[in-house]
């Protein structure tokens, strides 16, 4: 059985599955039950400064989009940081950590952008014996308007400054949580690194409006006839999060900076993908909010089985395995030629591949008598659309043409590796000649 024990910036946990800072980690009752269910760690729901807590709306705070069978694909929220008194949260954090020494306990923080506020809260957190802090520079609504959250996270200089204060006033490991509401995720990551962060975590939620009520003409979730943009998360954001994680993992400036991967992790497979792209562990919010804490059991069993099947003995063997294979478009091999192939035994004859290719791609699938669908290699550009629209997994696959074989579409023999940078159609190649 593979060992799922994870050491993330010196913080040990029995598995790499942490609950992200959010409602699942907002109080002792939840966190104890989460630990009993098997979660390896939690990032406590973001704490603010001393004084009267923030207030939340008293109407709906979530909106959603659904797939077939009303499966929740994306969730958005207009919730703020914890609305419970600071001292209550601190007391509970201390009490839970005392009883679960083997689990990771990280405290998420968001206080005004001045050194005194940060210094004050760090002293309180140290007393709880939590394992580390996470700086919430990501919350896109409510707090940003008050100069916190993503208002800080969108300005690399602020990130660097606050991170430096935190490292100066505390011995605790410090994770900087990044907002995706920015055009180049590497910039805030670099700033966090310069400020001395031990790790970054990403992504926080994405600015969004999930739907519009066509009777009341207000965005959802609707509060008294009005709505506001909220933070988007859940399975739908995973591709965005994966890309951002990969960008940081492969960038020269931030390569090697530990990453806690967040955004749409729903199954063990999602977690493994984040880890292969360089995340040392993952954090989960929406999946737990959709299915309850028990899903961690499938994540644990699934990841162990996968590691065993791959002959890997620990999660460290997996972390970063895919990073060297993330590259820029211009380095992709233009002499890698594939053709779609339909497995006639697996085909259920729905015809979706035909409609997709005929109407919107390259007219490369023939519909033969008896609803038999066949790829015409002399037309197929290998776009993969048929593979993606086929409801039967592995029914249509991409088959690589061997070197030297003649591609019936172009009439050219498949050659050696060659990419855009040397391609004759590339204007800059001609210019150099």
């Amino acid at each position, binding site marked *: 059985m593979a060992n799922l024990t994870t050491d993330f910036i010196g913080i040990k946990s029995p598995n790499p599955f942490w609950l992200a800072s959010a409602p699942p980690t907002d109080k002792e009752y939840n966190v104890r039950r989460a630990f009993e269910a098997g979660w390896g760690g939690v990032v406590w729901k973001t704490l603010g400064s001393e004084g009267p807590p923030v207030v939340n709306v008293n109407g709906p705070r979530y909106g959603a989009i659904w797939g077939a069978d009303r499966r929740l694909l994306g969730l958005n929220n207009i919730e703020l940081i914890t609305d419970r008194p600071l001292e209550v949260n601190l007391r509970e954090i201390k009490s839970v950590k005392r009883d679960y020494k083997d689990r990771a306990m990280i405290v998420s923080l968001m206080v005004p952008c001045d050194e005194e506020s940060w210094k004050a809260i760090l002293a309180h957190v140290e007393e709880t014996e939590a394992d580390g802090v996470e700086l919430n520079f990501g919350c896109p609504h409510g707090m940003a308007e008050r100069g916190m959250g993503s208002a800080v996270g969108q300005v690399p200089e602020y990130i660097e400054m606050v991170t430096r204060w935190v490292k100066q006033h505390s011995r605790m490991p410090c994770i900087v949580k990044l907002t995706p509401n920015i055009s180049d995720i590497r910039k805030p990551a670099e700033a966090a690194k310069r400020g001395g962060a031990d790790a970054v975590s990403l992504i926080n939620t994405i600015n969004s409006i999930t739907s519009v009520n066509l009777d009341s003409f207000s965005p959802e979730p609707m509060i008294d006839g009005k709505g506001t943009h909220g933070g988007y998360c859940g399975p739908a954001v995973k591709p965005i999060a994966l890309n951002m994680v990969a960008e940081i993992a492969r960038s020269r400036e931030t390569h090697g900076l530990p990453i806690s991967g967040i955004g749409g992790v729903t*199954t*063990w497979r999602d977690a493994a993908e984040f880890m292969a792209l360089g995340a040392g562990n993952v954090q989960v919010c929406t999946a737990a909010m959709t299915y*309850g804490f028990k*899903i961690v059991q*499938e994540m644990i069993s*699934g990841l162990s*089985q996968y590691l065993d099947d791959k002959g890997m003995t620990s999660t460290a063997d997996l972390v970063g395995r895919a990073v060297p294979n993330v590259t820029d478009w211009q380095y992709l091999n233009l002499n890698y030629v594939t053709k779609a192939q339909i497995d006639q035994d697996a085909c259920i004859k729905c015809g979706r591949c035909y409609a997709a290719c005929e109407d919107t791609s390259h007219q490369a699938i023939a519909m033969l008598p008896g609803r038999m669908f066949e790829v015409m290699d002399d037309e197929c550009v290998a776009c993969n659309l048929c593979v993606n629209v086929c409801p039967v997994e592995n029914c249509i696959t991409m088959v690589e043409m061997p070197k030297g074989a003649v591609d019936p579409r172009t009439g050219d023999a498949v050659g050696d590796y060659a990419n855009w940078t040397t391609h004759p159609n590339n204007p800059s190649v001609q210019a150099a000649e």
Partner: protein
Amino acid sequence: MTNSPLTPGIVPSRLPADRIARHFADHTPPLDGHEALVAADRCYFCHDAPCVTACPTSIDIPLFIRQIATGTAESAATTIWTQNILGGMCARVCPTETLCEEVCVREVAEGKPVEIGRLQRFATDTAMARGLHPFVRAASTGKSVAVVGAGPAGLACAHRLAMHGHEVVVYERRAKAGGLNEYGIASYKSTGDFARREVDWLLQIGGITVKTGVELGRDVTLDGLLASHDAVFLGIGLGGVNSLRAPGEDKAGVADAVDFIAELRQTADLTTLPVGRDVVVIGGGMTAVDAAVQSKLLGAENVTIVYRRGQEKMSASGYEQDHATSAGVRIICNAAPVAVHGNGAVREVEFGYMADTPAGLQPTGETFRLKADQVFKAIGQTLTGAPEGATLEGGKIAALPARVWAGGDCTGGGEDLTVTAVAQGRDAAEDIHNVLMGVAG
């Protein structure tokens, strides 16, 4: 071919070999990988799921289905086996339509439950095909336990005891282990010698010795077992069969349905197994249905189930009844046998119609006769061979001397299902373990 469904008497080979082979192939074919994903995707991962409550072994169904959906059927099998070590057989024989699938929220919502049984089979078959047995024995405790009866209860008990590090000896009176899984299940529900393969797989845990051909009361006694073991578990099932109490019952051609089913299961070439042209099965449970359907599948021309009460009282589920009628079996209700007629061998059975009155079943006075050259009795099994010291209640073991436990059909409470026997054997093993190790229970 020499015989046909019309050949009089009890004869073999009424149908060509290929038809018999087709008739006895997998009744519910296994799901392939794609079908399993589609089926798994329908599960809502309910909280405190009703299906789990309905499963006598409390398998964590939403979890194992999620594990299938995420491409780890092997982990799903571990989830199943942790609760039910005979999960492979239960996936085939459980009347899911009256257990987990009956209460699935999607059955309630749409009349089409998640196919829990077939998914369970997919997971366990996948893991067994890979030769996985995800359990190891704890360090030896030095304690030894005798398990009497290698049926579902005994096997489940033995496996759990072995896991806890006890040494287990299983005593089985028949030639093979498996109990009703081996001898009592309709052939088309357990093809490919699955019962034997599952027993072999289960024994991989180690620490279990199976002694076949040993019968309690004949070859060993309870006192003798208690002298050589620290504890005894009785999973002896129900060895006897109720009689019709109608004159003529001893005529040739009248047999016990359970014996017919057992013989059928042990016959390698079913074209050699004789069956009547006109078969009458008396009873209303799953044994009656299994005997009737299999007679029909062997090529009997007319097969009739006769049950003394109304159809709604039959213990065979609606699904089983439909299965019988769609195989061509006729079901007559509210009629009880009055006499078996014939000169040496049975030729007709006479029935009287019954009225279910507040004062009990009463004959209406009207009778009818059914042609029959073979009659199967399926009106319930009885406990035989209960050891001295056991207290019986309602014909089942209710109390036992110290250091003796029991489970399965020989005890009350269950509905005589494989899955309840497994639950009882497993729970008895935990109890035995706690007592032997001095853990306060």
